């Protein structure tokens, strides 16, 4: 009987494709939007992810994220270094600046000053050049997304910039996760950064800490807070702070939430309508089957198999569509590093299941209500 159910459904090509399209469209919309959402808000933590060697971030108590930070006096560094359990601690400067390009355009950039001696604070790998270039005078390393933004289609190596009236030369390209706003990032030595960023007495944004025992990072961060009066967050906590900041301060969750809800509603509408049309067209056949001697339980299983088939094919197409979408745009800097967390296909699978359970149940009600006696009418 299940074979017959499948043939009944696939035999009506128009409706079958309509159903599959409905599910695929919903799956695509939900999966794709959730993927973009998750990856986008994770960009709020890119500053933390890019410095993977730091176990603990120490900052002024009012600082909130890598980009919303209040500078500390330089004595903070020594205070942190004296806390037991700290293997190393290095200064880290993050500031906004304006650059004038060769063409005279003005561009806002983030300047990141990394420890002169160890260069801790740079992203893990380089696209071009080595991190050693920072020892040359006036050197900066630009991030790859910044390259595509400021120097589309050309190499930035050797380019001169005017950075807050200071001369800077790009000597390398870092492979970095872009920030939420995809701001151009220039990495330089801490001492150099102090020249680039004009300013006040306090300019130490963070102290990056390596723990003697990285597994005890949480305990170490608490000890640092106790002994220095500064705020200390483990890498994971600080990454989450960045994500939370985006969630709390932008309309992004709401916007994506609306799109995901629309995907679900459109799915219910298309699938519900097509499914009930399909059932209505076949109600006589279902009635005949009931008269001949097919139990309601078997009819339920038939409709469940029909829904399951539509769900499987539609869901598969939707997920594959999302993968192609992400893959197709992977060279676009906006989508750099995008991945599909495993939870998302699971969520859309649940959504598909709900859509089909709801619409299948509605459609099935008509079949179950059909009196077998109606076949003689």
């Amino acid at each position: 009987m299940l074979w017959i159910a499948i043939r009944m459904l696939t035999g009506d090509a128009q409706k079958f494709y309509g159903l599959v399209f409905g599910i695929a469209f919903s799956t695509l919309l939900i999966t794709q939007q959730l993927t973009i959402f998750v990856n986008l808000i994770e960009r709020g933590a890119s500053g933390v992810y890019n410095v993977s060697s730091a176990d603990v971030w120490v900052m002024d108590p009012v600082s909130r994220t890598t980009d919303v930070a209040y500078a500390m006096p330089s004595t903070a560094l020594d205070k942190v270094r004296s806390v037991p359990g700290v293997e190393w601690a290095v200064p880290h400067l993050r500031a906004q600046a304006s650059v004038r390009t060769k063409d005279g355009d003005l561009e806002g950039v983030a300047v990141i000053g990394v420890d002169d001696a160890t260069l801790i604070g740079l992203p893990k790998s380089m696209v071009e050049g080595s991190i050693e270039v920072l020892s040359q005078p006036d050197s900066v390393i630009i991030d790859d997304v910044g390259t595509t933004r400021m120097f589309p289609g050309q190499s930035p190596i050797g380019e001169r910039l005017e950075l807050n009236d200071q001369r800077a030369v790009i000597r390398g390209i870092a492979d970095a996760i872009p920030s939420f706003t995809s701001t151009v990032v220039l990495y330089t030595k801490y001492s150099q950064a102090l020249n680039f960023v004009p300013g006040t007495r306090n300019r130490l944004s963070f102290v990056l800490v390596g723990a003697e025992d990285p597994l005890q990072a949480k305990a170490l961060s608490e000890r640092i807070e106790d002994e220095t009066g500064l705020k200390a967050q483990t890498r994971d906590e600080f990454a989450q702070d960045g994500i939370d900041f985006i969630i709390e301060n932008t309309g992004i969750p709401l916007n994506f939430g609306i799109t995901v809800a629309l995907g679900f509603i459109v799915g219910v509408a298309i699938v519900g309508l097509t499914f009930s049309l399909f059932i209505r067209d076949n109600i006589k056949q279902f009635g005949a089957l009931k008269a001949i001697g097919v139990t309601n339980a078997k009819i339920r299983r038939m409709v469940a198999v029909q829904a399951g088939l539509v769900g499987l094919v539609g869901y598969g197409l939707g997920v594959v569509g999302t993968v192609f979408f992400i893959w197709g745009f992977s060279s676009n800097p906006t989508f750099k590093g995008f991945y599909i967390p495993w939870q998302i296909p699971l969520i859309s699978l649940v959504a598909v299941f709900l859509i089909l359970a709801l619409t299948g149940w509605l459609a099935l009600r008509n079949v179950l209500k059909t009196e077998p006696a109606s076949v003689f009418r």
Partner: protein
Amino acid sequence: MGTPIDTTAIGGCRPEAAICTRAVTRDFQAGQQTITVLHGIDLDIRAGELTFLVGESGSGKTTLISIMCGILWPTQGEVKVFGTDIYELSDSDLVEFRLQNIGFIFQQYNLIPSIDAANNAAVPLIAQGMDRLEARERAVAMLEKLNIGDQADKLPRQLSGGQQQRVAIARALVHEPRLVVCDEPTAALDASSGRRVMDLLRDVAVAEDRACIIVTHDNRIFDLADRILVLEDGRITHDGKDMPEGH
């Protein structure tokens, strides 16, 4: 016991009756009103006969055969099909009883459009749980008996109306049910096709231990009946080999 007793007189059913109804009534609710469509039907349908149920439109023919084949509950009365009191069965047992014992020929055929003639004819066997290929083989054999074996691979829409009806007949007979019911099998056909279908049904559906009951008001085929029952306003008013005078 000795000599057989005519139990009809005292309300019981003959054990050899294919279908036996006693005091069957059926009401329908039309708004506030209750319409009584059948008024105490007492009938014995014998196996081995082609029984016609005729009557004016609205007289209750469809209602009566629906009750006799287990798809419509009588308001009152008793219905036995081959000795089984079918409305005493549980819902699922009644469904199973129909699947094993009754073949249906619907006026609108109700074939499944997306499966071929042989698979359509095989539906009751498949529903009984028979292996699909074996069921198909048997269905093809039945189609051959109905002279449309060469159409076995065609979809219903590729067949003429008459061929579709033969497929529907094959479906009704493929599982060798003991009771075959048809509602208006010839209404959509011209005179000669109608007669051919009836001859066919006679050949394949009527046997020693099988009953076939046909609802019709097609007077062109009355002469093919073994027995004609006339229903008027929910009562049996005639029972005989031929139609009464004046019809």
